[in-house]
């Protein structure tokens, strides 16, 4: 089988033009029937706009006035702005998230001791890169930075998407540490577009590391800015006329604060049905304010098993006060020791680990209270 076979198999799944038009009418009718007055929405939308405005204000003033520290910046970032799809009201677990409520109900988190202000600026031909702040726990680091386009530079060309920046963060380990780390450096990483205010575009690099961050340094590499042509169909053979602004800059951040201050952990011997991820025995759980890691022995996550695939596993964190939330998978599933696999999950908003009672991973509940 080749890719053409794959495409041909899917080509057959279509609807006629008449069926589509009929579907549109049916959906519209259903929507109109369901439509009720939604006064509450206006208030919630206003809250989101306010939260966005606070974020923009914070990113603009940092470095210039210094009224904003990393704690304020990250509180603004996490208040409903952590993921573009959360803004659209959808979570990875498929449930309605309602970002406005997230922003409204977001409890200010005390990041004291787990981050630092940076305030580093470097100029390039058409823009300035401003590195603002970093927070980190034992395995996860967030770096906030802005791209400030020069006055006079056309940063909103017609027919192009928003700017993306290529950025990465690698641990700087000495030779001995690198050897002992072996493949355990397996990390996940992504750059999130946080928002824009006129010529200021804000980004956050989220990097996860299996190797403990305590006392280490992360070398961030900033690559080119890319503005994608959206006038050409992605399936077309016509080349895209993307705009690329060169950027080649490295900045090293020392993790010189106590990344373990808020870490809680537990060992276990708990067989669990991990649903979509397979089955295994949970041997250890570690929870930091930003991340959940779970070690699973006898893991069969890669076996093709319909029953295992048919259910999406729940990875819930339960709080002492009865609250609970679901952590988001971040796709890191490498072996760490023979047949033991480490699953890692990011948490959408930082959590006060002192309030955590237990975590539910698949069918197993692990007590994790201090």
């Amino acid at each position, binding site marked *: 089988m080749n890719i053409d076979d794959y495409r041909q198999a899917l080509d057959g799944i279509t609807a006629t033009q008449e069926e589509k038009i009929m579907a549109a009418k049916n959906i519209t009718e259903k929507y109109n029937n369901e439509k009720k007055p939604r006064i509450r929405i206006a208030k919630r939308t206003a809250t989101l706009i306010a939260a966005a405005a606070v974020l923009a204000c914070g990113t603009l003033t940092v470095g210039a006035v210094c009224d904003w520290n990393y704690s304020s910046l990250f509180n603004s970032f996490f208040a409903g702005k952590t993921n573009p799809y959360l*803004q659209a009201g959808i979570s990875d677990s498929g449930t309605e998230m309602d970002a406005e409520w997230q922003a409204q109900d977001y409890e200010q988190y005390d990041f004291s001791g787990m981050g630092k202000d940076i305030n580093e600026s470097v100029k390039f031909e058409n823009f300035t890169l401003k590195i603002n702040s970093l927070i980190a726990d034992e395995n996860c680091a967030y770096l906030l930075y802005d791209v400030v386009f020069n006055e006079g530079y056309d940063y909103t060309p017609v027919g192009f998407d928003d700017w993306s920046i290529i950025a990465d963060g690698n641990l700087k380990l000495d030779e001995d540490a690198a050897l002992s780390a072996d493949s355990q450096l397996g990390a996940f990483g992504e750059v999130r577009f946080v928002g824009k205010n006129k010529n200021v575009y804000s980004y956050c690099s989220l990097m996860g590391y299996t190797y403990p961050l305590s006392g280490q340094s992360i070398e961030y590499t900033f690559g080119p800015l890319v503005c994608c042509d959206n006038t050409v169909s992605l399936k077309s053979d016509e080349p895209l006329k993307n705009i690329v602004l060169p950027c080649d800059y490295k900045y090293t951040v020392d993790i010189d604060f106590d990344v373990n201050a808020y870490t809680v952990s537990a060992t276990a011997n708990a067989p669990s049905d991990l649903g979509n991820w397979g089955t295994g025995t949970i041997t250890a759980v570690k929870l930091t304010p930003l991340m959940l890691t779970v070690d699973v022995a006898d893991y069969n996550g890669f076996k093709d098993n*319909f029953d295992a695939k048919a259910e999406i596993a729940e990875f819930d964190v339960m709080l002492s006060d009865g609250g609970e939330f679901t952590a988001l998978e971040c796709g890191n599933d490498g072996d760490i020791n023979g047949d033991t696999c480490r699953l890692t999950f990011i948490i959408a908003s930082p959590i006060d680990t002192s309030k955590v009672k237990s975590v539910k991973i698949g069918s197993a509940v692990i007590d994790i209270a201090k």
Partner: protein
Amino acid sequence: MNSLVDDEAFEKTVVTHYDTLLKIAYQYTRSRAEAEDIVQDTFLKYLKTLDDNRGFADDEHVKAWLIRAAINACKDYLKSARRNRSVSLSDITETDDKAVNDGQTDVMDAIRSLDPKYRDALYLHYYEGYSIRETAKILGKSENTVSSRIQRGRRKLKEVITDEH
């Protein structure tokens, strides 16, 4: 009753993206009727999103959002199907022949047998033509994760096809 929706614009959106969502949903559900229900729910959610004044930058943004919403709706479907399973395994594994050509049934079965995380990445990259970066953005995963899923997905697809023949 006066419509609360811009009928013309919405119809255009449905006509443009219906097949994409149907293909995604059908890979999850094995049933044309259930796939159509998922597509309808996804477009309903889209209308509600418009109603909440959440804007979309352009049609590609709309498409990415709809794909994401459809995948989430499919996951919800799997969860509910799992919870409420009352049909036999043979019912579940039997395909809806009307939806695909006879010659492609084996390939569709192989595609459906993939873990959804591989299936979604393969579909967006190889069928919809999204780049790795765009696929990663839509799925909310890192580019490395998506690359790895595409490679593993292709390998698994080949293994399934080879095993069946």
